[in-house]
């Protein structure tokens, strides 16, 4: 027997809605839905997820080795180390931001915990982006750089990026319910981010005074760590990992806090 008991104030009442169900089963089904819907109507299916970063990598490789020459070895792999975490981040951010509005029908009809919808959207997106991670690792092997023991770090790094983007998406999906322009802000921000993350330039080109700040950008930190591990075969510096862990955890906590403050009035605005 469960009881839904509301205190006298509606803001607090929003936090009290009870849903007694199987959280993991629901998240799995929601993520599977996004995944299936994405691929069911594509004749080439997963191939598109691989093609997009390959085209991007090809263009950047052509421009920065044939038009502007540079001395960075394995430039194609170097660029892909930037594109894959960048893609994972931006596609999750974009689809996550509109997730509540896209699923307004669910929110208005089923008392599921609202957090589940942006979280499941991010996870579903990550499942589909994992093909690109496989592509990256395959290219590294094909380029003649072998597996080294630091590859274990990858198991911790990708989840940290997912934690970070989940926190961010909790904030932006909630804001997008109240102000529908938010998604366009995010679209512009991803363009800016492409240049703020060291995708086509190495970290060493960045002036020293920006180094510290750069490492607090989890996507930049992710790219740097990937290059350390995959291209240079060295462990990423501890300071980098600490900053990455710190900013991801903080972002998730802030995201949950903001989301809980905003969710009480979702129903009225959807």
């Amino acid at each position: 027997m469960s009881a839904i008991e509301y205190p006298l104030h509606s803001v607090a009442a929003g936090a009290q809605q009870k849903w007694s169900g199987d959280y993991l089963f629901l998240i799995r089904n929601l993520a599977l839905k996004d995944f299936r819907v994405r691929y069911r109507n594509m004749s080439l299916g997963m191939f598109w997820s691989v093609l997009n970063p390959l085209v991007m990598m090809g263009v950047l490789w052509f421009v920065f080795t044939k038009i502007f020459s540079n001395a960075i070895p394995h430039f194609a792999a170097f660029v892909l180390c930037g594109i894959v975490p960048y893609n994972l981040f931006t596609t999750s951010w974009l689809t996550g931001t509109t997730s509540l509005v896209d699923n307004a029908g669910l929110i208005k009809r089923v008392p599921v915990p609202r957090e589940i919808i942006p979280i499941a959207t991010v996870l579903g997106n990550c499942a589909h982006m994992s093909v690109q991670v496989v592509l990256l690792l395959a290219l590294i092997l094909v380029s003649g750089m072998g597996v080294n023991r630091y590859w274990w770090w990858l198991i911790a790094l990708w989840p940290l990026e997912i934690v970070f983007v989940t926190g961010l998406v909790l904030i932006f999906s909630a804001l997008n319910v109240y102000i529908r322009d938010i998604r366009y802000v995010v679209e512009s921000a991803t363009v800016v981010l492409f240049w703020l993350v060291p995708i086509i330039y190495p970290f060493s080109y960045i002036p020293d005074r920006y180094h510290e700040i750069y490492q607090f950008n989890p996507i930049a930190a992710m790219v740097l760590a990937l290059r350390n591990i995959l291209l240079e075969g060295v462990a990423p510096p501890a300071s980098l990992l600490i900053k990455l862990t710190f900013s991801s955890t903080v972002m998730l906590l802030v995201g949950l806090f903001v989301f809980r403050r905003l969710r009480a009035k979702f129903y009225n605005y959807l």
Partner: protein
Amino acid sequence: MTSRPIIEFRDVWKSFHRHSGQLLLRAHVQRLASWRKPVERFDALKKISFRMERGESLAVVGANGAGKSTLLSLIAGLVPPDRGRVDVRGRVAALLELGSGFHPDLTGAENVHLNAALLGLGRKRLHDVFADIVEFAELADFIEEPLRTYSTGMTMRLAFAVAVHMDPDILLIDEVLAVGDHAFQAKCFAKILDFRRCGKTILCVSHASGMVQQLCSRALWLDHGDLLLDGAMAEVGSAYESHLKPAHAYTAETPRDSQDP
């Protein structure tokens, strides 16, 4: 067991903004710029109090905009009240806008899984009732087809089948008995009567149709957010119908007047 009410409303108020769909940045800036102009609100429910005992069946009648759907949303836990208190002591299955969680590109079976998970069913329990759901919906031959190939009636049958297999304590019904063909409607109605016999609590919203009169023993009459009447179905039903009469009488008399001269 002591008979605590299964649903209890105590002085419940609920109002909504009239933001008239203006959700773009410009509207927000304009509102800030217009220096604290009070936001227009309307009260969907005004100081509503009632209680329902376990096993009761209650109909909510009233015109459009009377607050019937808001009342169901509060019981389903979709919105919190502004003031007052709503207590619900049991598992609620809401047959509100059936199939709102369905996706046309997923197969029937995939939609059943998703919808059941949304309604709170676990993996094991779904595994046990999945065959029953498909059988009840009479869709065994189509369950692996994408939902967009289904007719509206087939979709509704599937949604209804999932909802009634949730094993709820409280069933909320929002004028959804118009599901499928006559045979299936009869089956749905029989299923709901079954729920009543098992001592489940039923709450349905309607414009006082015959089916509801047959199903419910008690009724609430809502009008513009006020609770006008709370009593036996027959009593409230006839009061509500006679309230509606004048409007009907007027339209019915017009042609006869023209024949008189």
